């Protein structure tokens, strides 16, 4: 009998415990009326890795701002919810941040699909939303409060690569391209620059295929590209499918003149996990840790010390850069009034680690793109030429 009672007691205790912990308000720091910046990030689930890097970047920015006396004389702090990589949760948490927590500023989320949905929320509530956005289509919806600063814009992603390719003598350029694209907003947006430039440069697109994730096997993709003598391979995918493709390319000894990888190679795991097999892969980016703009050195030193990495990961930089834009908007408007911040941002130049930028009526800067190539296990900048960190390796040496 007593045993049974204690069981009940334990159950009750547990349930109450769960409810209490669930309802606990986040600890409020002592300082005088901080500026609260709220929103959600995918801290667990499918996109946890990226979400956590964005968070680290943002927190570093806050550390720095607070050390310098804060924003508008007030310290800044974050209210970050974990949307568990779900779009609908990102929406509810954006609304929670805006209407319940009444945060002073909103921050940007990830991935593109979540950003697309949250852009709508920001517009409805008239909150400035600085994020990577959800590619060109999301900036064509007539939203006025969203900014891509810098955006992750698939449509621009290979611009730098093609500009560099155009500088090669025509007989050295690849002639036949195999294009494999993941069937999601990122993948589809990458097709834009490929379609424009292959026409312009007279490169024949021999294979143009989409696949749905997960990519079970890349062997047939490589066999096909090899048989049709494609000397340029576009692997427009994420890390898992990108890695599968590269490993198959090496295993089947497929040696095109250049391999271009969509999103996968921008995360630190590419170099770390693939090692030398990840070398010579081209990719694009709208932000890069070896850029010569102020702030990059400092960030690199910080991640070196804190995480032992050479150069900050892309999404660490994004998290930081979006906050920089927001910060300048607030300082410029000298107010936390969202419309004033928006109007200031639309009419002034901001300076970020991705360079100076101005925004058009859709909230986009003029196309930004840098071409990168992985050389000797390091991501090197190869285009635009004036900021090149290393000569590109072309054609790609054979696998060894």
């Amino acid at each position, binding site marked *: 009998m007593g045993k049974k009672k204690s069981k009940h007691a334990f159950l009750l205790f547990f349930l109450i415990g769960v*409810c209490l912990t669930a309802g606990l*308000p986040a600890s409020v720091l002592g300082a005088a009326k901080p500026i609260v910046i709220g929103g959600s990030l995918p801290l667990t689930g499918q996109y946890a890795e990226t979400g956590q890097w964005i968070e680290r970047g943002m927190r570093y920015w806050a550390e720095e701002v607070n050390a310098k006396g804060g924003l508008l004389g007030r310290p800044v702090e974050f209210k970050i919810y974990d949307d568990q990589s779900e*779009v609908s949760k990102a*929406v509810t948490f954006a*609304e929670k941040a805006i209407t319940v927590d009444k945060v002073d500023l909103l921050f940007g989320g990830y991935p593109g*699909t979540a950003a697309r949905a949250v852009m*709508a929320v920001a517009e409805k509530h008239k909150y400035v939303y600085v994020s990577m956005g959800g590619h060109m*289509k999301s900036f064509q919806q007539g939203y006025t409060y969203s900014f891509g600063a810098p955006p992750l814009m698939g449509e621009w992603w290979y611009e730098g690569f093609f500009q560099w390719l155009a500088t090669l003598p025509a007989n050295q350029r690849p002639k036949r391209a195999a294009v494999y694209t993941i069937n999601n907003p990122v993948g589809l947006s990458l097709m834009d620059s490929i379609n424009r430039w292959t026409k312009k440069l007279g490169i024949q697109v021999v294979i143009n295929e989409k696949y*749905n994730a997960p990519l079970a096997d890349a062997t047939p993709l490589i066999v096909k590209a090899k048989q049709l003598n494609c000397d340029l391979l576009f692997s427009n995918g994420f890390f898992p499918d990108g890695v599968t493709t590269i490993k198959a390319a090496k295993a089947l000894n497929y040696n095109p003149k250049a391999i271009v990888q969509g999103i996968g190679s921008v995360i630190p795991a590419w170099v770390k996990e693939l090692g030398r097999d990840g070398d010579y892969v081209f990719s694009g980016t709208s932000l890069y840790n070896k850029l010569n703009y102020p702030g990059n050195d400092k960030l690199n030193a910080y991640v070196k010390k804190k995480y032992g990495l050479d150069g900050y990961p892309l999404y660490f930089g994004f998290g930081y850069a979006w906050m920089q834009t927001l910060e300048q908007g607030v300082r410029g408007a000298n107010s936390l009034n969202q419309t004033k911040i928006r109007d200031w941002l639309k009419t002034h130049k901001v300076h970020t680690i991705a360079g100076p930028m101005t925004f058009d009526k859709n909230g986009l800067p003029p196309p930004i793109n840098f071409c990168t190539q992985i050389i000797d296990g390091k991501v090197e900048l190869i285009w635009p030429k004036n900021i090149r960190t290393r000569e590109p390796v072309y054609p790609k040496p054979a696998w060894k």
Partner: protein
Amino acid sequence: MKKVPLIMAVLTVAVLALFPLLRPEVYYLSFLFTLFMYVVLSSSWNVIGGYAGYLSFGHAAFFGIGAFATAKMATAFSLSPLLTILSSIPAGLLAALVALIVGYPCLRIRGPYFSVVTICFAFVVDLAVKNIEELGGAEGLWMTFMDLPEETSRAIMYEVMLLLMVVTLATVYLLGRSRFGRGLTAVRTDEEVAETMAIPTAKLKIQAFVVSAFFPGVAGGLFAYYLSYIHPDAVFSINISILIVLMAMFGGGGTWLGPIVGAVILTVVNEGLSTFAQAEIARIIYGALFIIVTIFMPDGIIAYFRRWATAQRKA
């Protein structure tokens, strides 16, 4: 229903319906909107999964069909907000029609095999939408906003979802107590025996499946308008299918109250835990909830408290 519970139910609905008049923050309306939505999803799932014992793991398919049908209609014909909301009803009918077509061959399969067929079905629908550009494809669909203050438009969505929830619960309640419901329970207990008792099991199962697909379809339509941008990943995710099943089973499958209790507890706890300082720890606590409850209440919360109540009465 007996008098007292009926009055309580009416009172609860009345309080909920009047809640927007207090002018709560938009978030609370949105949160309750999602909560009602999950009650709709798991209660309708319960008709086929709980009463008939056919565990469908692909119910997100119907939810998603409703969402994309509504979004497509709204964008193709530039529907007004009112018509957009109403278009979720034909969207629900479409989901029901699909259930009819798919249910016919699939419901002959029993046990876990049925579950896996429904998983496959959900993937097929998901991938078909992603591959067909006319449906929005892998880009998804954008819908226009209501031209109203956000508080008002969220309050409207809230009331509509509340209405859907009440209709769903009433339907499920009445079905559960009808001959239809008893027939389904017979199917779950022993399908062969039910057949020998001249219960038209095949027909009952199809009907149950169609009903359990209709309401999620309508809910999907409303959800699409609520999000205003939808992508296949947001509505067809297998996580949604699994969550629906877990909610119903967690509370107690085959009971009217079970899915409601399950949906409310899991939604509230999950939402609350998201404010927790360290995200991973929050998820671990959430996981532990499933373990502890299952160990102590292996047949669901409702069954546990019923047994407990009977024990009290005896003592």
